[in-house]
């Protein structure tokens, strides 16, 4: 930081941050300004950063290529896929008219955000997340695009 510069980090207004596959890798690669902004604002506000366990199955390689992701996973919460979250995901997928494995993982991400009381989904595919979040009426869920 430049001497004398004031670093102003706003308090995150969202209740939680949920990472999908693109979000997890954006944080692991640390090459996305917006991902750093979301995490810094969340840290300042005491907001939890969560990755659903199902995302790990979809995202990780199971070998040394996971090293950077594993460093991130030591410092954020891995949330289990509970019966309630799985059922919510199934409903969201149906409401969005989506099918397939990728849609199932995305629906679990949105259902996890819903269970967390709403929040930001860090994602490289905001369109699908938004379509699924449209089925959530009790909390605010918004995708934030990362590269």
């Amino acid at each position, binding site marked *: 930081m430049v001497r004398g510069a004031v670093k102003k980090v706003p308090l995150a207004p969202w209740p939680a941050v949920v990472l999908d596959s693109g979000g997890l890798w954006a944080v692991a690669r640390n090459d996305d300004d917006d991902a750093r902004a979301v995490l810094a604002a969340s*840290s300042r506000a005491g907001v939890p950063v969560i990755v659903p366990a199902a995302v790990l199955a979809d995202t990780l390689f199971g070998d040394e290529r996971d090293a950077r992701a594993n460093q991130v996973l030591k410092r954020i919460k891995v949330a289990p896929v509970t019966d309630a979250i799985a059922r919510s995901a199934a409903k969201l997928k149906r409401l969005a008219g989506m099918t397939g494995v990728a849609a199932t993982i995305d629906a679990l991400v949105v259902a996890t955000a819903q269970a967390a009381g709403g929040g*930001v989904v860090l994602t490289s595919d905001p369109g699908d997340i938004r379509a699924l979040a449209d089925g959530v009426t009790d909390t605010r869920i918004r995708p934030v695009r990362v590269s």
Partner: protein
Amino acid sequence: MTGSGKKSAAEGASGRGRNVLAQAAVPEKEKISITLDKTLVDEIRAHFGGRALSASINELLHVALAQERLAELVSQMEAEAGPASPEAYDRVLAQWFEAR
């Protein structure tokens, strides 16, 4: 929220991520003896009502440790790549407040 209507410690601490963070498998417990400020204990008891003190403190520590770990991650990311730009904060806040 518990069945008795009392707030959990995690809910009371911030209300954030409550249902997700409370659903992990129950880990093994260890009974210890610790000494805390009486004013702090009184405040926790008053805030969380009749809820078991151990459970309240256990959850508060989970939340506190999660925050510590996230702060470490952010520090590491900023050390590697620098802090996020003001424009990045503007972009993410705009996406959060975006109407459907």
